[in-house]
């Protein structure tokens, strides 16, 4: 699995100035409410959508969201909100 290596200089600047990484480095930001709602910001695209599995392409790799009755509550160009019973979230390779 290839590790995601960001631009080193940019990374140092972000670290030194404590800038929000999800904005400057375009990393996905996930926030979850219980096990029933997950919001993913800065996703790139949807690769696969099934009621029990959702695969999202992000800058750090593919995000696997497993669960039951997954529903895309809202899809906008930079945010995706998923509802349903979420059981497992994991990152995979490109």
């Amino acid at each position: 699995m290839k590790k995601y290596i960001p631009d080193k200089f940019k990374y140092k600047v972000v670290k030194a100035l404590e800038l929000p990484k999800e904005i400057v480095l375009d990393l996905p930001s996930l926030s979850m409410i219980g096990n029933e709602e997950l919001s993913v910001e800065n996703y790139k695209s949807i690769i696969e959508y099934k009621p029990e599995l959702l695969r999202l392409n992000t800058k750090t790799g593919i995000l696997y969201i497993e669960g039951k009755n997954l529903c895309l509550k809202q899809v906008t160009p930079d945010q995706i909100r998923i509802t349903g019973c979420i059981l497992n979230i994991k990152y995979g390779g490109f």
Partner: protein
Amino acid sequence: MQYIWNFLRGFVLVKITGLSVERFINVAAFNGVNMWDIFKTRDGIVMKVSVKEFKKLKDARRKTGVKLKIISKTGVPFFLFRYRKRKLLLGGVLFFLFTLYFMSSFIWLIDIEGTERIEVDAIIESLNREGLTVGAFKNQISPNDIENILLEEFDDISWVNIHIRGTRAHITLTEILPKPEVIDRGIPTNVIASKSGVITRIATSAGTPLRNVGDLVQVGEILVSGEVIVKQDESGEIINFVHAESEVWARVNYEINFLLPYEYIEKQFTGRTRRTHDFIIFGKKISLINIDNYYTNYDRITSTRQLKLGENYPLPIITVRREAREFMPIVKRHSPEQARETANRMITSRIIREFDFETDIIDKIVNFTDTVEGLQVDALITVIERIDVQEELEY
């Protein structure tokens, strides 16, 4: 909140079938389409899109080759489109809105708060004269002017505020503190007796006392004169007239005489009652059930209540609650002892009712005489009370 907004804008439920629905979503999202409630079905997905953004899906459809099918249309724009030919409905809606606006431009209620001594009716009368009435146009009322007029008209108002909130005029006012009773000490007066009795205490602070402790005085007799002799010698007298002031206490007798018949009627309530409500509408009485003369002996209990709009606006509808309670009249006879007891009780209650707190009751002599009709009661009550009254002096 989001749902209400979507409903107002109108949205469609779309079914997407094809090979690459995920790609379709990606392209659509990239084009800036806002989609929500995406569900997977057996042969594709369903999603909701706002009416405006539905047109943007064309591009994504062409690129990915999926099929779009509108399942349902929801929201205000579709509703309006469906009912576009129903002119009367539109008229009804406009009429409703207009009526709501029109009716809310009147004053419907007037509330007055803070009155203690001033009559509410007088204030309302004054307000009505200035145009603030129930049914007045809100725009034609200037609260500031009416406030000033109220302040001018009522000397007892120190502060008043008229606040028109919706269809309600709320008037808050503060009354000035009551002025203390001013005794004009420039007017010469005598102190006279208001009751006949024997003086027990006399404390004069101004004037010449003419009577002393132990004297028997009659009603109207001068107790303390306002004439004060300043100087008296061969050349004559110099008399000064003052405002006589004195506190005079005297022993006063009161007689209570009455005849207590031995026979009396006791009401024994049977527990049977009949109740009814009458209505008086615009002065016309409407009785639903007649309960009079239903029983031979009954007590009538009537209570009236007037319906009011707010606190100060009585409606011309009065409800009268009437109740008839049946009783059996039972003739009973007091024994002499019981009669005496009852008589004593009656005297005590009369004393409590008739004398003030300041009055001291020092003696009570009760004489009972048995006669044929009943018990003759003669009571002599001796009390000590104030008897001084001011009277203007003529000179």
